[in-house]
């Protein structure tokens, strides 16, 4: 067993385990913290697939920005008594369960049905694409203009946010 496969099993177990904790915890803040752990496990998995860029983005964007947003919303909602959040078995849950089993079966089918050569080919392609060097090179040559336009978009959004949210005008 190589170190890579050991890492894979450890991280996968962490990801699945923490995902279970996310949905089973009563306290929303605790659930959100388990979600962060889950994000880190996923980032580790990306890293083992040579997708460094996605791994970093996963931590910065999801574990950083989006989680802060989550925690803010949880605090602002001020849920108070957690027991009120508990609900029994509803039709929605049954349908959701059936759908998730269907997705599982689908994934299983795809992976068992694909010839192993293709796995290897896809893996090599991913290695080529996912590195920071490759994405950086693309971003600053071919996609230079979209990259710069994004900065304009963000500037416009900031100006707009100030216009709409400034407490006092002038």
């Amino acid at each position: 067993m190589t170190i890579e496969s050991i890492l894979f099993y450890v991280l996968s177990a962490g990801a699945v385990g923490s995902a279970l904790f996310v949905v089973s915890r009563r306290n929303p803040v605790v659930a959100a913290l388990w979600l962060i752990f889950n994000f880190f496990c996923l980032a580790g998995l990306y890293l083992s697939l040579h997708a460094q860029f996605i791994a970093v983005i996963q931590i910065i964007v999801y574990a950083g920005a989006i989680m802060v947003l989550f925690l803010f919303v949880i605090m602002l909602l001020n849920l108070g008594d957690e027991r009120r959040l508990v609900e029994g078995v509803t039709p929605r849950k049954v349908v959701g369960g059936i759908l998730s089993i269907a997705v599982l079966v689908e994934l299983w089918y795809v992976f068992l049905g694909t010839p192993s050569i293709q796995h290897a080919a896809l893996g090599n392609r991913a290695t080529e694409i996912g590195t920071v060097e490759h994405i950086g090179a693309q971003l600053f040559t071919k996609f230079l203009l979209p990259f710069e336009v994004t900065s304009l978009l963000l500037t416009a959004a900031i100006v707009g946010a100030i216009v709409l949210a400034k407490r006092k005008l002038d």
Partner: protein
Amino acid sequence: MGFQISDIANNAPLFTLVATGLVVILLESAKSGKPNVSFIVSLAGFILSGLLAVGGLKTEDVSFGGMLMNGSYSNFFAIVFCLTGSLTILISKSYLERFGQFRSEFYILVLFAAMGMVLMASANDLIIIFLGIELMSVSLYVLAGFFRTQDRSNESALKYFLLGAFATGFLLYGIALVYGSAGSTNFSVIHNQAPALMKNQPLPDSVVQAGLPDSVVQAGLPDSVVQAGLPDSVVQAGDSGLPAGQAGLAGTIFLLGLGLVIVGLAFKVAAAPFHMWAPDVYDGAPTPATGFMATAAKAAAFGAFVSIAFKMIGSTSGTISNLLAVIAAASMILGNVIAISQSNIKRMLAYSSIAHAGYMLSGIAAANVEGQAGVMYYVAAYACMTLGAFAIVSILERDDAANLSIDGYAGLSAKHPVIAAALALFMFSLAGIPPLAGFFGKYYVFLAAVKADMTWLAIVGVLTSLISAYYYLRVVVVMYFKEGEAAVEGRIGMSTVVAIAVCAYLVVQLGVYP
């Protein structure tokens, strides 16, 4: 590939706007509360950018590694945006002062929206189209809600934002599907593959290889995207090339993607059945912002629409043409019929703008050279007459928004004969009465529809134009033949008068010398 110094020269109008926008932001932070400076700098930026666009009309080039297409097409639209942008700024000054909202941010946002518009019209890549639309929309959402103490303005901004975000979702999903099936977001590459994809034929290998510009795509990302979503075909597909069954699937995905892109754009031009937001948003937004939305934003969306229809899909698009023709007919009928029952002039103009989107779409549906030229002419003519009409509405609007009903215009001709005459001119032009600009716009797009064997579409267009004459002329009748107390509060801003004069001049000029 990549960036060259000439790219900046080719896109001089765009970069002038960017520089102006940033300078105005810096000026505002250095000398807060001097909106007059921002007003003058923005105006100068727009005029300079428009002049540069006039200068660039002749050079046809591609810049930023095929991301942008510069030339007569993009520069023509840049001129339209700079014209509408500067007119909006002129109109806004006295209006904003009257409402106590004369602030630099208005001009910054107009400038940023204009940058997005120029990008949309010169885009040669779906990514740029998307970013341009977002840049424009984000600025417009805020402009709609600029009077943040007014409930109507807030409601308008929120509605526009929520529905606009939804439409962007459609657009982005469509772009993803087109990318998945064609293997690129670049218009020229997709254009090469479109005929094969449309006919559900397997892609010739040479096309696939010639069309793939870089290592990411050569690494087979598109195939894997298509395959990953489709278990069955993966099982059957070998790992070389695209077998017939899968190419058929790619064709279906391509059409689906195009359909979703069209939904997204049809929302932006406010064509039926994606028009629901327009009346409420136009009604609630500050009038100069409404004028900007109804003209420049619509022109920009049509700029993107025409590039996608002609440069990306090409002329082999029977299915798409029919789809567009149906949307066009629906917009013309719905916009014109509902406009009759409107008593608020801003809502009336909103429905009229839906109808005009229908007229312009019939030029795109015709999918011939006349159609393209007709749409471009129509965009310019429509921008002048609608912006002129909104300028006059902005003069007459009072604090409590009470003076927006058409009946409130009664007796305007006696008190302010020049303003009434100008409004009558714009209404005649919107109704399509020769020899004004609106008539030739309609003439060109309907001619294109007839040439493309879509006579039925032209007939629908002419009949609905007749209906539209009723509600446009009603405004004229109310102004001239009804006694009333129409009055302008305070004195009319000099800049607004200049803007109205420019619009009126262009409406006549474009009509007499088309």
